[in-house]
């Protein structure tokens, strides 16, 4: 399927995005186990903070040690989270 290929090519996990990254959420995964939560619970918590497909994201800041946690501009709000949990959010880079 050519459509999905083009999306997949430009995508990465938000947890791996560098500071300054701008893009759009393409998927919030439910199969990532993290932080003592089930994947489904992590997905719901991310959704409750507004991580929904289509929303714009920009990585604003990161911590000193291992670049963790990160501060993400998500639509009109700023959310801090660890890179580990941010891995469940798949984003496509703005072109």
């Amino acid at each position, binding site marked *: 399927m050519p459509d999905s290929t083009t999306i997949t090519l430009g995508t990465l996990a938000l947890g791996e995005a560098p500071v300054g990254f701008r893009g759009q959420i393409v998927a919030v995964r*439910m199969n990532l186990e*993290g*932080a*003592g*939560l089930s994947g*489904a619970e*992590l*997905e*719901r*918590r*991310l*959704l*409750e*903070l*507004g991580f*929904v*497909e*289509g*929303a714009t994201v920009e990585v*604003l*800041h*990161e*911590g*000193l*040690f*291992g670049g*963790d*946690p990160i*501060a993400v*501009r998500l*639509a*009109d*709000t*700023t*959310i*801090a*989270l*660890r890179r*580990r*949990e941010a891995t469940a959010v798949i984003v496509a880079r703005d072109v």
Partner: protein
Amino acid sequence: MNAAIELQPLVALVGNPNCGKTALFNALTGSRQKVANYPGVTVEKKTGRLATPAGRAIEVLDLPGTYSLRARSPDEEITRDAVLGKLKAERAPDLVVCVADASNLRLALRLALELKHVGRPVVLALNMMDIATKRGIDIDMDRLASELRLPVVSSVAVRRGGTDALLAELDRNLERLPPAGEADWRPPDAGRLRGAQREADRILRAAMRMPGRRDGLTARADAILLHPMAGLVILLAILFVMFQAVFAWARPLMTLISDGFTWLGALMGSLPLPALLQSFLRDGVIAGVGSVIVFLPQIVILFFFILLLEDLGYMARAAFLMDKIMGGAGLHGRAFIPLLSSFACAIPGIMATRVIDDRRDRLTTILVAPLMTCSARIPVYTLIISAFIPDRNVWGAIGLQGLVMFGLYATGIVGALTVSFVMKRLFWRTTEGEPFMLELPDYKIPLAKSLALGVWARALAFLKRAGTTILSMMILIWLLASFPEAPAGAPGPAISYSLAAMIGHALEPITMPLGFNWQINVALIPGMAAREVAVGALGTIYSIDAGAGATEKIGQVLAAQWSLATALALLAWYVFAPQCASTLAVIRRETGGWKWMWTTFGYMLALAYAAALIVHQVAASFAAG
């Protein structure tokens, strides 16, 4: 009449964290509010009264902030149960006001959509409208109301008349309250959350025009305050100023309070009362309560800073900066401020753990907070160090006495980190804690009124505790130290005939391996009231008159009577021992039960015994060899 009060309509305020809900609550109710705890949990229950323009008396309930009714913390459970009318201690609200930050509507609208399912009328209040307008955000309120099918009003908590529209809307709705509808709310699954957020985003696109950029001030400030290096340096500088203030600014006031209680005690001594009653009032009630109230200035200053940083929006940033460092020991980023506060006194530190949402993270923090070296340990440390540690330099310029003091602080910190690390694995059986996810709100200028009300509520809560739980502990300790009375003309201090002395003797076989004699055991009993009281108690037991230079004399006597191993073991004991009844009482209150209080008591006692035992045995074998 009671029935009339019962009939006052109840309005619940619900909103996201940082939406200015508390400022709105303060603007609505002013000083006619009271802060209590929900029974069995440590969630603050804030209620207040107001009268509408139509003369209607209303009771307002300020509920903990939440993003969803799908509760994840005890605070959020209260919010969910309160709006659904499932709370035993509270009747169901007649009306729900969904408070939203007008410049940050995205998540608030999803919450508003969710609240439509609780079966009560809902009003959406667009709060902090002035800030939104200043930022060039244009909201079509009629469109918003018709899309949401909810009444929408704007509010500005900081301005006189800023709540008029909301009050008028409350009157309009309460005029003809529909019978409570059926609550068809269910915890939403991922699909419904997605759907609701998409709907909220659609409504937002239809009803709001946004300049499309961040708040300029917040962006500029964060470039510095969240800078990986500069951010940490600034955080440390802020903390330095904060603790300087807690110690230095509080000093004159603390002296004043302590002098006041001494004067009151002396006054009591001059009254023509039976000796026993006099001792009870002077040594039990006045000295006991005084030794706790003396910390009030520190608590007020500490909470002033904590609430100021919280209202500014900085607290979430501090948690962001510290998360990785704290996370290594299994602590949450937000545990940082409470643990730091515990260096002044564990009581405000434990009270400050309310900023931690997750129950397990909060319990871990509460359990290790008493290991931070509080100011009450300092008099004991100073006494023993100056009596036993030679005042000379090691490795050139480093004073040995200062080094030992530093070592005691470091032992406490390392102990706390180790305990939390172990707890995470043993108690919670997980290597990872709750995820760290929180909103970094735009910076806001704090309101003097909100700040004052917040500090006042904390001070009042502390005084109330000093007057109830702590007072009863003090009286118990006084009883132990005073009964039975010494026979007339008996030699030695009266305390050596008391129940405390009997306990001291009885404990000797247990404390022998630590090198503690019965005199130390006795001093530890009044030391339960407040750690530094042990200094005075040692003076009493070794028959040293109180007065100028008393502490110095106690030091000389101790140096003659104790071995170095005993002194070092006592220091090790003091780092870990649960030597503070007030702290234990606060833990019981804040965790809502005896279980965690006894857990804290037990593990600290075990650590203290082990540490003192090792130190004494090692030091004694060195002395022998």
